[in-house]
């Protein structure tokens, strides 16, 4: 935050600054939204109603693949913004596309995981545990899906208009959203999967 350096393009106009601040406030609301879903899950996790528990259906290998895909995509979206600040449109576009592909890979594994859960007899209606689990994971997965659609549309704008005050501000905000989804996943990985598995 040193004052002698040039302000990045996405912070240039007052409107962009307010948009970015507004998005941070929205992320605060998202933290609270996910906290309610985590709270429900923690309260319900032992109520398996004779159905499978976490230790019966969670597969460490699948979870680690999902985790590394999302972790890497958060890193590549950071590289995309780094390229944007160097006014490197090609780099920005390339790293954002890599980010989207990793995000799509995450969704592919998550959907397969859901199918595996259902195959093991754990649907959203099975028990309090599965209802809490599917709601929490599903809400996160829906956010990832929305993020992929949103960033894809922003990339169309980027190709047409180049790196401008407006497109840079929009892409920066989208990158904040993407990093945030990784933050949520870290807590899902730790407090849902690792906590729920036994040795």
């Amino acid at each position, binding site marked *: 935050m040193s004052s002698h350096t040039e302000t990045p393009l996405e912070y240039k106009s007052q409107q962009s*600054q307010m948009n970015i*601040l507004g998005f*941070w406030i929205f992320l605060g609301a998202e933290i609270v939204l996910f906290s309610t879903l985590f709270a429900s899950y923690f309260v319900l996790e032992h109520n398996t109603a004779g159905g499978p528990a976490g230790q019966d259906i969670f597969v460490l290998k699948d979870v680690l693949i999902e985790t590394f895909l999302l972790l890497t995509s*958060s890193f590549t979206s950071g590289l995309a913004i780094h390229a944007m600040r160097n006014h490197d449109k090609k780099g920005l576009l390339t790293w954002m596309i890599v980010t989207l592909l990793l995000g799509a890979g995450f969704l592919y594994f998550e959907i397969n995981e859901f199918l595996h859960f259902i195959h093991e007899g754990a649907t959203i209606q099975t028990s309090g545990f599965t209802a809490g689990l599917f709601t929490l994971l599903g809400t996160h997965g829906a956010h990832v899906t929305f993020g992929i659609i949103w960033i894809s549309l922003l990339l169309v704008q980027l190709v047409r208009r180049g790196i401008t005050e407006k497109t840079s501000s929009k892409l920066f905000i989208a990158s904040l959203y993407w990093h945030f989804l990784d933050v949520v996943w*870290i807590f899902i*990985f730790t407090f849902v999967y690792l906590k729920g598995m036994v040795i």
Partner: protein
Amino acid sequence: MSAKSNHFPWNLLIGFLLSIALTLLAVFVKFYTDFSSLVILWIIGAFAIFQALIQLFMFMHVTEGKEGVINIVNIVYSVFLALVIVFGSIWVLTSGHAAH
């Protein structure tokens, strides 16, 4: 926050490598140590919080921009609400109040 940061993005790479290391460490602590499950939960929980801070500061640059202080206050307040909701719900709904 320089606009022309042509140098190699070391903070991103370090943050990424730390995140991977913390993820693998959490798996190691969970499956290959003999701590009690409560101790394990505290350790992997600390790793998760550390990873979230890496994302916030090294990837999202939460303190950047003119509103850096507002961002911090906003996020700290949201985290406070989240903790109240999570621990409050667990406390109210699992400590036997319903039986009375």
